[in-house]
């Protein structure tokens, strides 16, 4: 029973972070209609921002959220404005040329990081990175619990923003029907820039929250881009509520897979669920929640 509960706790905590990674990609997917394959690399950039601030200025990693999120917001906007928006106006053989562009951006970001920081493994160590507290014999990692709490806050903040503010409504409008939104006077190019910025800022938060318990090197983006992709598909393309379910499902699947099947199969369990969802509920969890 203890093993079961501990696995459950580990899965849910990790799932909270995964959800944060997935929501950003989902937002971008909904508004732009493309998969952002540089998503994990945005996270890597944010982690380097956090590392630099922590290492040179001694700022606590959680406070660096206030810097890493805005800087990635700006980076997202710049990339959308100067690299992705111009592509939409160009006729091309492949309609997916924006997706290909994100792959290129991912590579460039990785190599820039390697150029500046070399391939060294870096980590941020705080007094609480490897401490834990216990509730009835179940260990909760302090850093992961804080990360989960902040991830929840950010998610609620995002929902409030999407539902209650004008800008949020415009984003949802473009996501539901871009042309109709434009006819209603929504500046869709601006909305796309802001959405890319928000998506990048959200994944930046995930990166910053993950860094105290994980580590960092230039190639870390790839695996997380893949995870974000799986979460986005699980959740149903473009559904933010779905992405939360997708993230928690992936976290739980990985944890239970690791405990009861074997840790060699951790990634496989997630991907098998991914395939099953594609086969049996092709619309993702959105089909079940109807949000």
């Amino acid at each position: 029973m203890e093993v079961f509960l501990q696995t459950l706790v580990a899965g849910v905590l990790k799932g909270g972070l995964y959800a944060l990674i997935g929501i950003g990609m989902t937002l971008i997917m909904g508004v732009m209609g493309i998969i952002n394959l540089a998503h994990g690399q945005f996270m890597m950039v944010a982690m380097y921002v956090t590392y630099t601030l922590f290492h040179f200025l001694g700022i606590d990693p959680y406070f660096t959220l206030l810097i890493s999120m805005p800087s990635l917001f700006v980076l997202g906007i710049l990339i959308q404005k100067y690299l992705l928006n111009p592509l939409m106006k160009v006729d091309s053989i492949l309609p997916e040329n924006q997706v290909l562009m994100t792959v290129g951006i991912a590579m460039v970001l990785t190599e820039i990081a390697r150029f500046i920081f070399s391939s060294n493994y870096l980590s941020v160590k705080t007094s609480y990175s490897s401490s834990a507290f216990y509730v009835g014999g179940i260990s909760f990692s302090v850093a992961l619990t804080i990360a989960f709490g902040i991830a929840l806050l950010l998610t609620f903040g995002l929902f409030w923003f999407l539902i209650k503010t004008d800008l949020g409504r415009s984003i949802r409008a473009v996501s539901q029907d871009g042309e109709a939104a434009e006819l209603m006077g929504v500046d869709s190019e601006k909305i796309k820039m802001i959405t890319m910025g928000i998506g990048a800022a959200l994944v930046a938060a995930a990166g910053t929250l993950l860094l105290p318990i994980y580590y960092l090197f230039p190639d870390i983006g790839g695996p997380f881009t893949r995870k974000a992709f799986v979460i986005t598909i699980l959740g149903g393309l473009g559904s933010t509520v779905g992405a939360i379910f997708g993230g928690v499902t992936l976290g739980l699947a990985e944890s239970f897979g690791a405990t009861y099947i074997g840790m060699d199969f951790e990634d496989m369990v997630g991907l098998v669920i991914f395939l099953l969802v594609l086969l049996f509920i092709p619309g993702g969890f959105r089909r079940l929640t109807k949000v």
Partner: protein
Amino acid sequence: MRIRAFGLLVVLSCLILGIGSVCAAGEPIKVGVVLPLTGEQAKFGEIEKNSFLMGLEEINKAGGVNGRPIELLIEDDTGKPDVGRSAVEKLISQDKVVALTGGYSSSVTYAVCAVAQQRKVPFLVSTGSADKITEQGWDFVFRIAPPVSEYPKALNSFLSEVVKPQSVAILHENTLFGQSGAKEFSEQCEKAGIKVLIKEGYEAGAVDFKPLLIKVKAAKPDFVYMISYVMDAALLMRQSKELNFNPKLFVGGGAGFTLPEFAKNAGDAAEFVFSADLWSPTLPYPGAIEYFENYQKRFGGATEYHGAEAYGCIYVVADAIKRAKEISQAAIRESMAATDMMTAFGPVKFISYDKKKQQNQLPTYLVQWQKGILETVWPKNVATKPYVYPVPEWSKK
């Protein structure tokens, strides 16, 4: 990633400095190197590349080989077997190298060895340590480092003389290197009467090892043996501490556990962790400590056994070329097979034993992290510090 200009640069700088007389002149001899310079194993590739270049510079400064400088063509295998294969194909067909060396990850090295054998180019493996690499009867493949099954030799004698454990849990990364090491070690344990309670692999780069560690903790093994690369190693130790998991000792099977990055990233969770090790600068080999100090001076970071393997390799290759009857791949294979020399990494002589062919045999050591410094603790005659055992529990460290 090629550094063709490098040999030339060395020659030029010698000329400018007016010491041209001791410099090698004439057509350079091309040697190919395959290493992971990008990707997840880039850190190790970097250490080995720096060491190769340091050795190369010294050899060429001292006149090269029979008056000709050696030129290293370094290709990036990115840690993937297919990329490694095409890199080595290119080195052989396009650059016409006379010998190959390098080879970090076992999976890549295995693929590269197959090509070298097929194209009959001598390949001196610096690291790739899965046992089967030298068990294929390939006569163009040599290995300077011991196979992974022999990494825990010193550990085994330490266990039987000091710890006398009853049970073990073996964790390994799910790669050729990890699987091969775990299989051999569990066989050695069973032979020594130590019960293997858990033997499980994991996917390298995992975020959360707790599900695995909870299971291991519940099984209550006397000690834990882990075959991991550096960051997985650091996370395994940090999360063991978080779970307050206290076996009699944690032992790493080389690879990640001896790197300075391990201690830096694991922090206090690295304290008193043991590891198998193949080399240390304090060993009584000529040039070992000089290599260590020069490396630190030049690259500003510490080196460890992977670097020493590479540094040793370039000297062995130069020696084999020097003794070869002619500069051809077949002749260099012949002379390399007859190698019997001393390097900073240790004595090198390629012998055949058990199923292995052209394998160098070396003693291994047991090291322990003490206050952030990697101390050799076993065998006693080369120990730099006495071992700390029994290891105190996490709460008392």
